[in-house]
């Protein structure tokens, strides 16, 4: 009986390692082990580097406040690498700047699906709520943010108190 149990347990482990082991070496920790999400760039490395180029381009356009060009660049980045959380987040930022709030929320949701503890995405989401006049929504995000980044949360609180979504906001 004992031998059977060990055989069964060993079988489970060997099957798991055979099927999933190689993939696990590139893991990012996730919640379970306790880590929490970090960068993960699956897909081919050339796609990931191309996505990074479009991301950098998006940042440049964003600095110049060329929002529609920045949006195009970020869209291309996430098309090439759908797991590029920072690109999704910046895309949401640009959509907020052109007042396309639904699309902004969609982009933030993608970023947070990939990295639930992504402080910047929570901040931007709060600012989007604020821009829409939803102070309660902004406060909900603030409550999360203060656990993730105290300094960022303090800056957000100033914006909420001033009812100004752009206060202290930098691209």
């Amino acid at each position, binding site marked *: 009986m004992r031998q059977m*149990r*060990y055989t*069964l*347990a*060993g079988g*489970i*482990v060997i*099957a*798991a*390692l055979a099927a*999933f*082991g190689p*993939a*696990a070496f*590139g*893991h*990012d*920790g*996730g*919640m*379970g*082990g*306790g*880590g*929490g*999400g970090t960068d*993960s*760039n*699956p897909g081919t490395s050339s796609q990931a580097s191309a996505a990074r180029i479009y991301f950098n381009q998006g940042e440049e356009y964003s600095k110049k406040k060329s929002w529609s060009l920045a949006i195009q660049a970020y869209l291309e980045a996430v098309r090439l690498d759908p*797991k590029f959380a920072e690109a999704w987040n910046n895309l949401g930022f640009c959509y907020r700047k052109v007042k396309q709030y639904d699309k902004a929320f969609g982009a933030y949701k993608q970023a*947070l*699906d*990939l990295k*639930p*503890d992504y*402080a910047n995405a*929570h901040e931007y989401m709060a600012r989007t709520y604020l821009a829409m006049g939803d102070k309660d929504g902004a406060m909900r995000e603030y*409550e*999360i*943010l203060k*656990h*993730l980044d105290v300094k960022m949360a303090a800056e957000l609180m100033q914006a909420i108190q001033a009812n100004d979504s752009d206060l202290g906001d930098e691209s």
Partner: protein
Amino acid sequence: MLLRLALAAVFGAYGYAKWAGGMDRIVGLFMTVHIPFPNITAHAVATLEVGGAVLLVLGIVTRLVGILLAIEMVVAIATVVWRQGFVGGYAFELTLLTVALALAVAGGGAFSIPLLVRRRSGAT
């Protein structure tokens, strides 16, 4: 015993990291994915990971620890990493889940405290 030690090392390290300063981030993460009572749950999870690691090393209540850690992994996969896909997503948690389940089935095995005690009392 190897499985016990491997799982103990992983969970012990992550649990310790939570207690050593990562707790707030875990609370924020739990709030994001709508885990009930995020503050209490985060502390409970960190305690389970550290306490579970110690128990696994000693081979005490291995089946129970295996089941609890497996439940934690199921919740982690369902609420957090499932949406991130397999590679770079839930592959790691799935592996931990499988090892935890294997221990829940097999028990402490060789070099566990209960087995050593049983052997000693059987010998006398």
